[in-house]
């Protein structure tokens, strides 16, 4: 894109996102008004909860880390024509691998331990995503269905591990022992919980962006996603690219598990997947950015703000915590609809080369 076009593109995107957020908060206000609370107070306490103190900013960032990883994972896959909705399971595989390896191998120095954990968790997720990719290419089994089905198997494996072979010393709580300090992602600001996982997540997004847009292999991934028959016609090995995209996606999703186990929580716990697991939420994180790896950083943060802010919204404005789900859903719908409207109205430049036919 020419520079002027690029500027217009980003101005357009910013404008349409800002408008969708405004409409979204407007629509959400109806729900807040209906239970007799003041929407402005509610939104104020929401922002206060997410940004009010350095401590709350740190918590918001922490909540965003797994969402950025799973969002990036979804973006890579969807961008390359493989619809991976198994990030939840791949995240668990990463979490399992991290906990099992960290608690099994003899203590290594941190500069060896962390890269080792990074590798094994990535491989565990990549392996888990590789199975549906193989089934798709070899047998034509729809990857949306297989990845969805494969989400539960690791969930039960976690349940087994934390109450069986790797249960903590006292054998009471359903969790593993805490990881040795050298296996923990270090906090980088003294006194705050926010840890190295945030840096890894952002670096991963940048690397994936550079890979997809600045390398010829990345171009082949995107071409496969944009128009499969045309990509095949160009001589791109589309099956191989889809397989690779899926494996990369699974590995990235697994890093969300690494970040939870070796960073935020410090141990593998049962039920660390909340009801709207990070894996499922990550799909929405990716889709609202139109599958842009750098956009994922922003939308991951946005979801993190909503999650952390909703708790203070309940305390401060007496709005039930579940309101955050309604707000999230409305935001996703308004943003997606605005993308659609812009395309319909002929603002092709708004979505630029990110436009995705689906």
């Amino acid at each position: 894109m020419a520079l002027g076009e690029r500027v217009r593109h980003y101005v357009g995107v910013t404008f349409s996102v800002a408008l969708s957020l405004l409409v979204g908060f407007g629509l959400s206000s109806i729900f807040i008004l209906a239970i007799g609370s003041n929407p402005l107070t509610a939104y104020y306490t929401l922002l206060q909860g997410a940004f009010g103190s350095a401590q709350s900013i740190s918590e918001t960032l922490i909540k965003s880390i797994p969402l950025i990883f799973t969002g990036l994972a979804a973006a890579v896959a969807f961008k390359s024509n493989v619809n991976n909705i198994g990030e939840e399971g791949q995240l668990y595989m990463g979490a399992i691998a991290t906990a099992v390896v960290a608690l099994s191998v003899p203590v290594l120095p941190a500069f060896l331990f962390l890269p080792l954990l990074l590798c094994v968790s990535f491989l565990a997720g990549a392996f888990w995503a590789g199975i549906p990719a193989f089934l798709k290419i070899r047998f034509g089994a729809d990857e949306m269905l297989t990845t969805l089905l494969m989400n539960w198997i690791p969930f039960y494996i976690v349940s087994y591990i934390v109450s069986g072979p790797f249960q903590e010393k006292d054998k009471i709580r359903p969790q593993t022992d805490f990881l040795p300090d050298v296996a923990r992602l270090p906090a980088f600001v003294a006194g705050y919980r926010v840890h190295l996982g945030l840096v890894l997540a952002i670096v991963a997004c940048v690397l994936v962006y550079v890979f997809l847009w600045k390398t010829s292999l990345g171009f082949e991934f995107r071409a496969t996603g944009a128009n499969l028959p045309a990509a095949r016609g160009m001589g791109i090995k589309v099956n191989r690219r889809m397989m690779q995209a899926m494996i990369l996606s699974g590995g990235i999703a697994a890093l969300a598990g690494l970040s939870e186990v070796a960073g935020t929580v410090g141990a593998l716990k049962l039920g660390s997947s909340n009801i709207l697991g990070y894996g499922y939420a990550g799909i929405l994180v990716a889709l609202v950015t139109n599958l842009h790896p750098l956009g994922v950083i922003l939308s991951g943060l946005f979801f993190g703000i909503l999650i952390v802010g909703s708790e203070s919204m309940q305390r401060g404005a007496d709005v039930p915590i579940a309101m955050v789900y309604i707000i999230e859903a409305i935001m996703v719908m308004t943003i997606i609809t605005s993308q659609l409207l812009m395309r319909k109205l002929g603002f092709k430049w708004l979505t630029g080369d990110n436009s995705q036919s689906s």
Partner: protein
Amino acid sequence: MVDWGQFAIVVVGAGIGIAAPLLIAALGEAFAERSGMMNLSIEGTMSLGAALAFIFGSITQNAWIGLLAGMLGGLVIGLMNVWMAQSLHLNQVVTGMSLYIFAYGLSVYLFRAITGHTSTFGLEVPRFRPIEIPALLHIPILGPTILNQNVLIYISIVLVLILEVVMFKTTFGLKIRAVGENPSAADNVGINVYTVRYICLMYGGAMAGLAGAYISLAELGLFFEGMTAGRGWIAIAIVIFGAWSPVRILAGALIFGVIDSLALHTMVVAPQVPFQLLLTLPYAFSIAILVIAMKRAALPAALFKTYRREERQLG
């Protein structure tokens, strides 16, 4: 010493109860998927159905009105999904996932907004209880397993047979399958793709609402956040396991239900057995069935594909 015969009867009896909401939701989703639309919002829709059923069952003190309210709520979510995915051509993963979150949030929100309570503590709701006819209960094996369930279970078994006939023996069933297989061909022979999909998704949503209502009115007599506990997702797995046909879905739901029940009961009598690993089996089977289904072309070919009339292949 465990009496294994008695153990088996208890496990199966409880398994049927666990299977019921899975079956009901899967019977709805099967029709949606047969028409070519994936409805990923079931989990949230079930939660909404459970909440509405409890709220209105409690207000009117009539479980049937509660049931109807749950179904209506589900129907509305199904309608929103098909409108966004089919009429607005939005990606079905986006619509399904966002409605899942929306319906989930709405269930907790409406409970609080309408009843003014934060929990069901202190609220009474009439329940669907097992019909206990003493004469029937004494029939060996059948008595304590399938003859002492609640009326909704018998209704859903009858429903299985009706739906099997609708899907495979009626013109409407043929239309649904045609639309899911090849929408443009179906359109060319005069089938209204939009109408068929609207009906299937609204019906599928209502069934998900009913499944939720079953959980709050028959199973627990309660409503709380997260009570559906992932069972909507399992229903999707059962649809695949049952290869999109109602009778096989019944079998699939029973297998899931009994394995789940077996795991729960094993936990009590033999805590050292890794029961969790047993719970992974149905998913592994479902994946195997999916691979076989692809070979037999049993998967609706147009599943996940939004139909655009202007892209119809004429000829």
